[in-house]
């Protein structure tokens, strides 16, 4: 029997597991949550009562279907589900999996990575203050805990999540003081036309949601800084499209610039990476089925940011590729491949409509904190350039930017942009930070005494 390991139980991981199980393969699915669904269709803990329509809006049907499919696969023993578990590292066909009872080493012949994405963050002076969150965090707080991150909330950055979180917070009765989009309207229009051509209904739904935000929403803004007061209150300074200065008082700020693929495990699995100008980030290389070579397959936002619908398709395709490579009979992928191309055109429009704020990051003041884990400033990184040269990994060794608790997840894109800005070149010239195991913190006790040793 071939061992297939799937990492992640979001839309991609669930569809991959379903496709494998239908062909008689029983995969192991490792996921950090208690129950399957991923971040997008994350389920609240037991004892919560809001219906799916409240939690997932127009996508409630898709969420319910994925939850039902995955729960049935687990209940029928057709997949082995390891909940509340993280893969720490990958080495010679073994995955080190940290779960509630310690570390277990799992052998696998084939590996399907469906690790998703997190917010793509750009630093704003003061972003290290208590009460500043990612946009994803603001959504998780509401969706899985029924709380708002503050009494008076400001949402900032750009991307589909900005409008979505604003709409969800207002619908839940939170006070949203301002929704500040760093993308200008003309940029959004250029990308939006591509989005509408690929998926007119989804685009129209987003526009309607945006329209309901009214004057709270401002496009083309610049974020100058966040000041924290002694009592935990915040004030966000920003400029509108004409340069007019504003200060908005609040007690929580959530920000994000669309998404960044979570690629640490793909890196440890030996997958090569390419710089994407469209996404302004390094993305793993795979064929259109998600085949990355060496028995590794990638699916969902961890491969390319196509969103939840694209992730379901990508999960099926990766499993089909895996089955075909094992010489087992697999479903015909043609229809999914065609739908995938449409998802790619739509995602490409999103990337153009809501771009990474390269100029603002390059202009970050020297005294602004870049690495929020260890309080390292943009100026410290710039000052290290004579020693580090144009090399993100050397700059990390010299300055510790990217070496802190988050392992560079939230600062590495900005760090490369700042170095590139100082050198007058593109950020891809700085190279890519290498992932280092363990990719999640683990106690020495858990690592020293693996289960079954």
């Amino acid at each position, binding site marked *: 029997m071939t061992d297939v390991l799937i990492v992640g139980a979001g839309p991609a991981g669930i569809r991959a597991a379903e496709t494998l199980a239908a062909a008689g393969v029983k995969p192991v699915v490792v996921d*950090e949550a208690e129950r399957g669904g991923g*971040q997008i269709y994350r389920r*609240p*803990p*037991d*004892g*919560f*009562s*809001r219906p799916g329509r*409240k939690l997932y809006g127009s996508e409630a049907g898709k969420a319910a279907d994925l939850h039902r499919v995955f729960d049935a696969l687990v209940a029928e023993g057709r997949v082995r589900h390891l909940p*509340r578990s*993280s893969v720490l590292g990958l080495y010679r066909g073994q995955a080190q999996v940290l779960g509630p009872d310690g570390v277990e080493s799992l052998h696998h012949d084939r590996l399907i990575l469906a690790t998703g994405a*997190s*917010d793509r963050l750009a630093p704003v002076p003061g972003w*290290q*203050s*208590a*009460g*500043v*969150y*990612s946009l*994803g*965090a603001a959504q*998780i*707080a*509401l969706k899985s*805990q*029924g*709380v*708002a*991150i*503050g*009494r008076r909330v400001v949402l900032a950055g750009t991307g589909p999540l900005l409008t979505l979180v604003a709409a969800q917070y207002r619908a*839940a*009765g*939170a006070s949203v003081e301002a929704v500040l989009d760093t993308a200008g309207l003309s940029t959004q229009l250029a990308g939006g036309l591509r989005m509408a051509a690929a998926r007119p209904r989804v685009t129209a739904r987003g526009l309607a949601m945006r329209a309901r935000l009214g004057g709270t929403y401002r496009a083309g803004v610049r974020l100058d800084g966040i000041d*924290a007061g002694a*009592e*935990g209150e915040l004030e966000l300074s920003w400029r509108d499209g004409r340069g007019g200065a504003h200060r908005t008082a609040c*007690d*929580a700020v959530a920000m994000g610039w669309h998404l960044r693929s*979570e690629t640490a495990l793909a890196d440890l699995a030996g997958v090569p990476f390419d710089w994407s100008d469209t996404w302004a980030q390094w993305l793993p290389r795979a064929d259109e089925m998600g085949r990355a070579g060496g028995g590794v397959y990638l699916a969902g936002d961890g491969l390319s940011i196509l969103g939840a619908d694209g992730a379901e398709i990508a999960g099926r395709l990766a499993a089909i590729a895996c089955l075909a490579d094992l010489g087992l009979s697999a479903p015909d992928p043609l229809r999914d491949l065609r739908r995938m191309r449409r998802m790619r055109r739509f995602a490409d429009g999103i990337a153009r409509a809501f771009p990474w704020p390269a100029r603002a990051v390059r202009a970050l003041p020297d005294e602004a*904190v870049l690495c*929020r*884990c*260890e*309080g*390292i400033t943009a100026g410290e990184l710039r000052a290290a350039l004579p020693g580090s040269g144009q090399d993100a990994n050397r700059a990390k060794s010299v300055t510790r930017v990217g070496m802190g*608790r*988050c392992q560079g*997840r*939230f600062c590495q894109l900005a760090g490369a942009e700042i170095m590139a800005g100082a050198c007058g070149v593109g950020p891809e010239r700085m190279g890519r930070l290498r992932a280092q195991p363990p990719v*999640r*913190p683990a*106690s020495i006790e858990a690592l020293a005494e693996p289960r079954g040793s």
Partner: protein
Amino acid sequence: MSRFVRLAEQERPTVRFRFDGEDLSALVGDTVLTAVLCARDHLRPAEFGSERRAGFCLMGACQDCWLWQEGGARLRACTTPVAEGMRLRSTAPMSWPERSE
């Protein structure tokens, strides 16, 4: 003062826990992060700056929200459910063992 505001799901039973020596209460199903921030405006002091920290990503990726327990072990507040009788601290419960000269 609290940072978070409860907007829904408030009909759950109460859990009591201790944070920095003070008795607080939360609701069953709260994460430790939700439980503390519904009563306080931050989780811990920053180790590399003068500011305070209150978590950041809430999905186990940034590792900003680790708290101490009185027994010495740490936990990640955003992915750990609060439990009756937990004794939590924003800082280490004891100083590092000093080396004898």
